[in-house]
């Protein structure tokens, strides 16, 4: 019995690994920089993390099915550019603009799903890589490769989500929290959510159990796309412009957040809370490096290393758990 408890505490510790890493990093940055430990800086981090949080939420469900979505960054940018083009052409109704962004993301995601399940392309790496280029190209075409500014255009309502704060707390992050709670319930308590995990764990067994995996996968990709639409709305508010080249790091940042948070390329695992920690960790690293005066080139190196370390820890942890289980059953 006592042994059991030790195991669970150990398990808990390893599950909390990314969170502990995040806290340790915060302590170090608090000690080494003056500006880090302040309310306004923390709020700044949340603001920076918001876009990645939305995209990561979509990436997570795709990763759970053992697939990958490389098109999220470009989809997000295309959705933002659609809003910009609408505004330029005089459609300044904020509801319409936001709806257009969401629909754009949704359609892009759904196409990804159809390419994978109906055309039976061998791996989502292919279909989403193709879509990544298609949507990026479309974004450049419709904006004539020129960024569109949103300031003083009478569309402040649209910008509010990404730009406004309440007592310094970014509205965008409030939406992130709401989205994450909904997604958490969806993944852990809904039948569809459970089917997503099962398809990731063993697609053939899921199919032969009567689960319509094609339909589930199309929903998964459509949902991932929809979430990039939300990210686009936040993006437009944050930078007040629609720029087709803004999304270059979005794909990898989202994958990194999920993997750091405990998701696996093999599918079948990953949680919203872990993904949140992963996304925050990346935001804190970027923020800290900025405060330390490091350039963005170094940020790439550091984040790359963090991903490698996180996966290494995860792999080691799993091997140890397996060994512990083997010993326990002996």
């Amino acid at each position, binding site marked *: 019995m006592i042994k059991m408890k030790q195991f669970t505490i150990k398990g808990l510790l390893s599950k909390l690994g990314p969170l502990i890493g995040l806290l340790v990093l915060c302590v170090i940055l608090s000690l080494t920089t003056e500006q880090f430990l302040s309310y306004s800086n923390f709020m700044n981090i949340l603001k920076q993390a918001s876009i990645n949080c939305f995209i990561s939420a979509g990436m997570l469900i795709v990763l759970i099915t053992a697939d990958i979505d490389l098109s999220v960054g470009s989809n997000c940018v295309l959705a933002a550019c659609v809003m910009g083009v609408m505004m330029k052409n005089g459609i300044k109704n904020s509801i319409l603009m936001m709806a257009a962004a969401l629909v754009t993301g949704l359609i892009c995601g759904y196409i990804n799903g159809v390419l994978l399940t109906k055309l039976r392309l061998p791996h989502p790496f292919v279909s989403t890589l193709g879509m990544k280029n298609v949507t990026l190209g479309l974004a450049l075409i419709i904006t004539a490769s020129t960024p569109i500014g949103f300031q003083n255009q009478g569309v402040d309502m649209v910008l509010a989500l990404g730009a406004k704060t309440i007592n310094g707390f970014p509205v965008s992050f409030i939406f992130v929290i709401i989205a994450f709670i909904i997604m958490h319930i969806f993944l852990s308590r*809904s*039948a569809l959510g459970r089917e997503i995990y*099962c398809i990731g*764990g*063993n697609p053939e067994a899921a199919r*032969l*159990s*009567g689960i319509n995996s094609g339909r589930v996968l199309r929903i998964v990709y459509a949902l991932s796309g929809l979430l990039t639409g939300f990210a686009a709305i936040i993006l437009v508010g944050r930078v007040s412009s629609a720029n087709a080249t803004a999304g270059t790091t979005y794909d990898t940042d989202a994958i990194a957040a999920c993997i750091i948070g405990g998701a696996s390329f093999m599918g*079948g695992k990953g949680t919203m809370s872990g993904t949140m920690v992963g996304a925050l960790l990346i935001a804190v690293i970027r923020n800290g490096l900025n405060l330390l005066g490091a350039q963005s080139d170094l940020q790439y190196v550091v984040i790359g290393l963090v991903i490698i370390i996180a996966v290494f820890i995860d792999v080691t942890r799993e091997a140890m758990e397996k060994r512990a289980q083997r010993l326990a*059953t002996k």
Partner: protein
Amino acid sequence: MKNMSLQIKPGEVHGLVGENGAGKSTLIKVLTGVHMPDKGEIWVDGVQKKFTKPSDARDAGIACVYQELNIVKLLSITDNIFIGRGIKNKLGLLNYEAMHKEAQNAMCALGHDIDPRRICGNLGMGLQQMIEIGKAIQLNSKLIIMDEPTSLLGEKEVFQLMSTVRKLKEQGVAILFVSHKLEELFEICDRVTVMRDGEHICTKKVSDMTNESLITAMVGRTLDDRFPKEFGVKGECMIRVENLNAGILRNVSFEAYGGQILGFAGLVGAGRTETMRAIFGADPIESGAIYIKGKKANINSPAQAVAQGIAFLTEDRKGQGLILSQAVSINLILASIKKFSKFGMLNNNAIHESSNRSIHSLRIKTPSNNEIAGQLSGGNQQKVVIGKWINTDADIYIFDEPTRGIDVGAKIEVYNIMNSLVKKGKCVIMISSELPEILGMSDRVIVMREGRVMAEIDRGSEHFNQESIMKAGWGGVLV
């Protein structure tokens, strides 16, 4: 494993039996250097050896042919025989000429004159297994461990394997033959060692043993009947298949009734699994009709088959039956997930109660319904998959090799589950490659060969015996 002792002589075929979890796999792992023993000694040819890694055992002349073959399907026979080794020339590059020759010699020694350049994935299971044995021969192994070597083979391939084993025996190679099939042990082994609960129970000459005494030693209790067949009341025609063509299938027609077990016999590759996959919507149908309870059914996907009341226990438990990474409770509701959700949300209380009921009624040995399915033993995993299908409350249960690779005690329990389904008026279709099982449990038997139905034999018929079924399976005509 506790205090296990085992002695194998050169040129001896030594059987090793025991229920799942008896410690056979652990013994194999210790002998092949995969696991280190806590205590104890291993002697090879009068020299004490210590295996700390698999290559130590290999160098000492011990090889193992695993149940799940270690064959790289995209590579040639030679590449597989020399996997991880290879003959090198002066430049340090692989000398394929010499390797092909060696590989061919090894395969010839087994009675297979085959081009060693052929790609393994295109060869049958039996030949792939021969390649593994060829690897052992090329290594000059003194002891070859064969772990459930016949479980993936058809009758003909088993026959070939047996003659190969006899050949190896003549050459003085010792063989440790691990099997669940008692008939094979009596056919091939000189002595048999029985293990139970990690301990050595007995080692005896086969001539001094009987089926019953062997089973008694294995389970520690008397199993007075290996096939506890009970009869249900023949009901309506649950499923009628007419002139089904799909893949290798040619005009397959049959009927199956409620309250009965319909056995499907035939060699591996005869099209039995293919027939069931086509009916279940897992593979596309080219032509033919399927009638469920008299009504024409249009089944294009497993989801539609489940909706029509068909359950399909696949032969590949781990690959197609279970989500190993998910809890037992989730696996149990996998095929009936809609019953446990309202407005798309899962009812965890209902899942908890239902899975506990299944665990209790099917006697699944698991610490809790939260245990990860991958942690259970083979027999208990199989019961989880059966529980998954019983939860769908289907009318037609297709069981493909339901007792493969599970121990004797669990087999009996699976038979009893089939009995109870039949008594409830359900229709059970059972594919099995073990003739005693077919004869022991079926009310009627369909024999297939090369995608066609060859014979249909009632339990009361004079042909309801091993000889007739074998004959039909080999293409003979029953008169």
